[in-house]
């Protein structure tokens, strides 16, 4: 990667951070909203599981799972359908296309800046909840070590798939509807509404192959030592495969889409 690209990316990141700091209250409210869903799931599963367990998850496991989920779901959030897609439709992408740096980097800078600014509000909430709920935790050090690469891949897949859906805006003004379908599938198969291990057989098999689990659920499972040995290695390999596939899909869609830029109202 050329140093000019990196310098350009770094300066975009600085500007996006500075820009987002102007919207502190809005960011705080978005951040708060992101905590609400996992708390609902946590309360439901804690109640359902009682003093027993479901697919190897007891109450503490569910609490731990959803505490880590709060962090992972935030750090792997894709906002491109709300940022890139409208700019394609309204023509606000043009200034970014006129710079000698692919608009991809600006989208990446915005994605990272958004998450970084929100962390200011979310980290104290996460710590507060962990201190209140105090789940028993037996650390799996290999899992904790592999959590970071798995998280980075999860965030990359999510960003790239989000960007692919945003690219639909080159063809249609309704890219958001496609994204909603994707999000519904992720809710079910990504380990959001329940850990993948809790899902019925067929759904579990589908989740292992499809990309949704690798954007949220898998890094949580890695961090908590829920996947081990060959299953862990296979999971990381599948995750790496989806990262490459999502990148390839983005490149193909961008190249085809940019030829149509201006066709849908820009």
């Amino acid at each position, binding site marked *: 990667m050329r140093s*000019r690209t990196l*310098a*350009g990316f*770094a*300066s*975009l990141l*600085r*500007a996006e951070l*500075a*820009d987002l700091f*102007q919207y502190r209250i809005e960011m705080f409210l978005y951040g708060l909203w992101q905590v609400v869903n996992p708390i609902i799931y946590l309360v439901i599963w804690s109640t359902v599981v009682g003093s027993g367990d479901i697919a190897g998850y007891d109450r503490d496991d569910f609490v731990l799972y959803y505490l880590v989920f709060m962090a992972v779901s935030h750090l792997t959030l894709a906002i491109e359908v709300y940022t890139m897609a409208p700019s394609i439709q309204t*023509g*606000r992408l*043009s*200034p*970014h*296309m*006129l*710079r*000698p*740096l692919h608009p991809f980097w600006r989208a990446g800078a915005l994605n990272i800046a958004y998450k970084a600014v929100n962390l200011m509000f979310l980290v104290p909430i996460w710590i507060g909840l962990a201190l209140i709920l105090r789940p028993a935790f037996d650390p799996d050090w290999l899992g904790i070590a592999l959590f970071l690469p798995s998280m980075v891949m999860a965030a990359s897949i999510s960003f790239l798939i989000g960007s692919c859906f945003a690219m639909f805006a080159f063809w249609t003004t309704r890219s958001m509807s496609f994204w909603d379908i994707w999000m519904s599938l992720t809710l079910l198969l990504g380990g959001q509404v329940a850990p993948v291990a809790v899902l019925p057989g067929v759904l579990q098999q589908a989740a292992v192959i499809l990309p949704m689990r690798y954007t949220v659920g898998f890094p949580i499972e890695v961090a908590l030592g829920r996947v081990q040995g060959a299953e862990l290695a296979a999971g990381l390999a599948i995750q790496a495969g989806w990262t490459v596939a999502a990148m390839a899909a983005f490149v193909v869609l961008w190249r085809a889409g*940019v*030829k*149509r*830029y*201006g*066709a849908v109202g820009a």
Partner: protein
Amino acid sequence: MSADVRVRHLVKHYEVADREGGLRASLRSVVRRRHRSVRAVDDITFDVEPGEIVGFLGPNGAGKTTALKLLSGLLHPTAGEATVLDFTPWERRREFLSQITLIMGQRQQLYWDLPALDTFLVNKAVFGLEDAAYREAVDLLVGLLELEEILTKPVRQLSLGERMKAELAAGLLHRPRVLFLDEPTIGLDVTMQQRIRDFVTRYNATTGATILLTSHYMADVKALAERVIVIDHGKLLYDGPLTGLIDRYAPHKTITLHLERPVDRADVAAYGEVVSADDVQVSVRTDKAQAASVTARMLAELPVADLSVEDPPLEYVIDQVFHRRAS
């Protein structure tokens, strides 16, 4: 020397959805969508030489902005060829984008909530400007555009004119060799329009940049461009000097007389078409070739206190161009 901008048979068609109003049409469009093709740019060919300033004229929807977007690499053409500085614009090569700019009066690159300086710093990094070159460019632009007070205020607190000046500066930091300016003075007051015009002239003189600009304000075109390209419905109607446009489409002069005393309108009509007349001021339109002899006759035969001979206003000329095409 080869042309900075070379356009050959450039065509851009858009597919747009087309349906009538009303609920029935709405329901029908659920099942079957109707599309029609809009020929925004329809087979245009021209060259622009290094250092030239060319005015792009045409009514709304004529294809001016589409042409500029094609030449700056934002749009892919339906057919035809173009090169800008020997690059094919829509390949969007880094070396190409580093040497051009497209500044649109109605689109902005500045961060809304941050001072313009923050956008400048992004452009400095993205265009790979060295510290010295950046400082030199900022100094030049601050001087030419009187930006001192503006750069450290959040963009949202700037007036429209101040914002346009900051936009221009942000788009020119990398010293582009080719400038595409789309309505750079739109919505600005007369003083600010004049400032932007002066700036463009001085920038061209200082840097030798090639400039292609569109404007609704004829004063912009008159002040900046010796050569104009007129397009309508995507087709090129005229390409040449501004004076040639006037000769071709409005080959007459307007003679305005201030009379010592009122005269009969019929007496004045003998010299040409009376455009306006009140007590002692009369304007007569006459054939350009005969303007000198008609003027001499008027001076000899009428009680003239003062007299002026002018080319028709550019607005009128343009109106004639499109009127003739329509009929």
